[in-house]
């Protein structure tokens, strides 16, 4: 549904954002709130050409319309299709740079590359790993462990008390 300049889905998540002709010099501090957007329109704004870091987290973005003099964030390699029109520039089809860069040592141990927006990559934990620095793998079943330990302790204690200490003098 449309709501002012936003296109929202049923759950209220932003899918489209229309910011054309808003006299914006930069996308603003609240811009990351729209990180779920699939299509964003920023044409006819006096934007400065440093948009690369403004799109952190915009992994769903497939269509980005920019003024003519501003480059697509991440450069031409980050997009499948860059088309120039009379009054705007359209970047289409965000590319996953993790596959193309091909450097196997990109991330620390147990980390894996994941897209973080147009032209951006981040290291998150590989499959199965979690926790700080992705050091942990799998999950420890406390119930099974304490169950086995408790029953073993109980049986050994009873056995030993019966065979050893029952006849002991009080001390």
């Amino acid at each position, binding site marked *: 549904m449309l709501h002012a300049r936003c296109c929202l889905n049923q759950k209220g998540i932003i899918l489209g954002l229309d910011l054309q002709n808003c006299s914006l010099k930069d996308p603003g501090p609240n811009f990351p709130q729209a990180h779920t957007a699939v299509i964003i329109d920023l044409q006819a704004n006096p934007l400065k050409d440093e948009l690369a870091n403004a799109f952190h987290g915009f992994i769903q973005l497939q269509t980005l319309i920019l003024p003519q003099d501003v480059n697509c964030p991440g450069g031409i390699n980050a997009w499948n299709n860059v088309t120039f029109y009379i009054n705007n520039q359209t970047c289409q089809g965000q590319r996953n740079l993790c596959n193309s860069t091909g450097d196997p040592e*990109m991330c*620390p141990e147990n980390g894996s590359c994941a897209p973080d927006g147009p032209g951006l990559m*981040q290291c998150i934990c590989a499959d199965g790993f979690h926790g700080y*620095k992705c050091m*942990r793998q799998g999950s420890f079943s406390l119930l099974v*462990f304490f169950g086995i*330990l408790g029953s073993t302790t109980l049986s050994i204690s009873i056995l030993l008390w019966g065979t050893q*200490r029952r006849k002991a*003098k009080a*001390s």
Partner: protein
Amino acid sequence: MAWPHIFQRGTLLSRFSHHHVVVFLLTFFSYSLLHASRKTFSNVKVSISKQWTPSAFNKSIELPVEIWSSNHLFPSAEEATLFLGTLDTIFLFSYAVGLFISGIVGDRLNLRWVLSFGMCSSALVVFVFGTLTEWLRFYNKGLYCCLWIVNGLLQSTGWPCVVAVMGNWFGKAGRGVVFGLWSACASVGNILGACLASSVLQYGYEYAFLVTAAVQFAGGIIIFFGLLVSPEEIGLPGIEAEENFEEDSHRPLINGADNEDESEPNYSIQEDDTASQVKAISFYQACCLPGVIPYSLAYACLKLVNYSFFFWLPFYLSNNFGWKEAEADKLSIWYDVGGIIGGTLQGFISDVLQKRAPVLALSLLLAVGSLVGYSRSPDDKSINALLMAVTGFFIGGPSNMISSAISADLGRQELIQGSSEALATVTGIVDGTGSIGAAVGQYLVSLIQDNLGWMWVFYFFILMTSCTILFISPLIVREIGSLLQRRQARILSE
């Protein structure tokens, strides 16, 4: 030679009831568990220092802060390592102080209560140290130091109590081999700790601490319900009564004339036995017993080397050769295997010779050679493991003997036999001095390694092993002298 003595062992073995077996196993495993939880700390050092530091990865890619650099307890891995070394030192110092105290306490209070209290409370402290701080994400240097000091004091209740209980049940005959086999408990504990830690490490280091603490707590409960401190507790005769009886039956075989004079003092000592058995010896008197001071000082140097291997081996392996932490942990088991075989075999040989010091001296001389060999080990896992086992054999063997069989010898010598309880106190003194040496050594090892490299650490170990030989040299000279005299007397009488 004591061969006739050993042939008599058939009768000895028949005197070992199921109580002896249970006492052997219970004391064996209780000390193993205490040692296992200490070993856990060494085995997870790499993981803990990763947990405390931010990531040092230097590439252009973005690293989300929560995953890679939100913990700043230490700015770098080097600082974390220094702190880990400090923790080791703190632990050993408080362990040493605790040993002196626990020995005295154990001789005066019920050994079973002291031991199970020590095990259970130490388990709780280890749980708070390793698991609770991680679950609550609360990392604090002061807290770690305090907890580890308390842990050192509580863990020190273990050794004097178990040696005293063993000393109550197993007498002089065959003590070397029984204690040699039994003192494998420390090494078995290391192996157990290494296995437990490496199998659970993938879930997070906090689970390694949880598992060892829980098992140790369970062990404390089992000890409380199952341990008999001495044969007198269920009405069986104590070992002094049995030894006096045995000596009487031997007498007629040796010198008929002396028999009459010797037998009367025997009977009077037995009467005094029942009257004054509970009197405990004072700390100063225990120190003045012959042999206690030289063995304590020698043990200080030897335990330094032994414990430095124990604490730093996995770290050295992954640092020097680049092997993974879990693999280095599994390999460090070979050192303990060597120690077990060494302790048992050397205990047996010293039983046959009936002299301990010459066996120690020879083993220590060969230990110097094996240290040189190990320091030049190539980057190959099998050769390294073999050299490690050999070094463990020559260093761990004497170490096990001094801390167990020799302590039992010193604490039950004829001077005080039957008239005072000194075993736990003497064990506390010998092991306490040893632990002070080990504590000083921890600090020195991390200092030397930081400034001069691992080769100089090995030179330091060689120096310490030589000092050990130096401290027991008067005893060596005396015992070799008496061995030669005995041989001469036998040759003359043939």
